[in-house]
């Protein structure tokens, strides 16, 4: 797969912020001619939840998608800077993006289970990684951790698409964590869900951060305050004629919301725009 092996992940953290697991530094980022993001440096701490907030088009999803090289799938994507995962440059030419994505899982905005059974959905990642052990046990464990087991244990053979939206999203979380990735990226995981399902996913995130480092993009400021340990506020710079996103401030969530340093942050939190 890769010439360079990604380092083994250390023992799951106890949830305290005990180091940087991913160092994200985007100096300048383009999609083709479009200058999308600049000057965004966010070290992401192990065993914590880090939120990206900001108005539409500020590049927060782009930043998140740099963390597991999902942007490689977009034509014309390139950037200056670095993304270091456990001190390894994941954009190094000898690193296979596929291997990166196996270590850094992702949950998307729209629930996107495969058109196959609940069981096979969760087992998919295990199969990709050539897992040889007890699949049933792993699948159950993942579904339990995703707080979905009790609801689906009698319908493991049913299509994942037959579940409700909230259940589908938890199925996607189960699918992402079945292989025990080190980091879980969540791109507006609740934006397609109703408030009850949203609450469940949030509770789940707080439980999951005991074992995984989580980075989440959210439009919902309350959500960031409820779950995130640190929050980065990104904003759009239109001064050069384009729409280039950049990081305004990145601080512990409580401080950012209670005592924003920048005027843009203050205005955004006060709900003056977007």
């Amino acid at each position, binding site marked *: 797969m890769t010439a360079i092996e990604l380092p083994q992940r250390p023992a799951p953290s106890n949830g305290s912020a005990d180091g940087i697991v991913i160092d994200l530094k985007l100096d300048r980022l383009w999609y083709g001619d479009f200058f999308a993001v600049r000057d965004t440096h966010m070290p992401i701490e192990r065993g914590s939840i880090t939120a990206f907030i900001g108005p539409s088009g500020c590049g927060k999803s782009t930043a998140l998608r740099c963390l597991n090289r999902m942007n490689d799938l977009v034509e014309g994507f390139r950037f200056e800077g670095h993304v270091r995962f456990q001190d390894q440059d994941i954009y190094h030419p000898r690193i296979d993006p596929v291997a990166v994505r196996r270590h850094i899982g992702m949950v*998307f905005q729209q629930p996107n*289970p495969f058109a196959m059974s609940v069981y096979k959905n969760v087992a998919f*990642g295990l199969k990709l990684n050539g897992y040889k052990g007890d699949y049933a046990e792993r699948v159950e464990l993942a579904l339990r951790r995703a707080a979905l087991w009790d609801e689906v244990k009698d319908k493991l053979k049913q299509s994942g698409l*037959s579940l409700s939206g909230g259940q589908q999203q938890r199925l996607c979380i189960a699918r992402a964590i079945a292989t025990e990735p080190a980091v879980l990226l969540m791109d507006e995981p609740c934006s397609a869900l109703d408030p009850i399902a949203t609450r469940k996913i949030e509770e789940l995130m707080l439980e999951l951060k005991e074992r995984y480092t989580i980075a989440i993009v959210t439009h919902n400021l309350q959500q960031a305050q409820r779950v995130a340990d640190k929050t980065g506020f990104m904003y759009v710079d239109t001064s050069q004629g384009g729409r280039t996103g950049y990081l305004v401030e990145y601080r512990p969530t409580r401080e950012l919301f209670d005592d924003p340093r920048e005027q843009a942050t203050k205005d955004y939190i006060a709900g003056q725009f977007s």
Partner: protein
Amino acid sequence: MSPPHVTSLPRPPTAGEKAVDVTFRHGTFAVGLGVLGLLALIVVEIGGVAAPALREQGLQFLHGETWDANQQVYGIRPQIWGTLYSSTIALVVGGVLGIAVALFISQGFLPRKLELLLKTVIELLAAIPSVVYGLWGIFFVLPALRPVTEAIHDAFGDFALFSPRSAGPNLLGGSLVLAIMILPTVTAVSRDAFAAVPGKVREAAFGLGATRWECIFGVVLPTASSGVFGALVLAFGRALGETMALAMLLGNRNEFSWSLFAPSNTLASLIANTFPEATGTERNALMCAAIVLLLITLAVNVLGTLILARTNRRLRGLA
């Protein structure tokens, strides 16, 4: 507060507008029924002409192996066999090739513009007249195939499949041309099935660390499987009914054979070749053959349509 001169615009539909709506609805209903009526009419009319022969020949018509106008003995087993045999070979070859092409032009292997260009070119293959395919078969495929079939015969001639040594028209050549002819159908319909797999689902596979191969075979193909199956069934239906090219390439021999290299015949070719000079009972018998062909293709197409309908339900998670 609206200015006083602005009056409220909504009004109920007039009697005239309602009448147009009702007429339109009934009109489309009538056209729809008309299509069904047309099908029934064809079956009844051909069936009427076919009936005497069917009464006379009985079941022997279906499993008899002789077609002899002089003795008034008509059996279409070799032609039914030839139809199914050639169509199946075409389906296997054209199906695999067509699905491969559909994947190639839908899974981001090429720039988008090139994908669309290739898609159009492949759909153009469907516009080539059947008789042109027949000529191409006679002047290119059969001669090109000959050294290959002869070599295979010399090596494995003991097998019924490869005997006799082919001379001129043969089942394999016809079937391969047929495979090319159904390729556009397979490709177009399965490409649409692949394209209907939501981008977010492919994204999920890549997000889990699937390679392109794993994404295609683990997610895209299973998700689109009913659509692909539908494509194959539709293509099979086309192959069964194909007339001209096979009439030119198969050799029109009304004899049952397992061999790939022997001349053969199909129901459609039998009708096309024999009808112009047929009189009396032979005409009736040909009508019977037409009914049998119609029933086979109808069954295959109905099945294909049902399966296609299922794909969409499945993508929405209802099945």
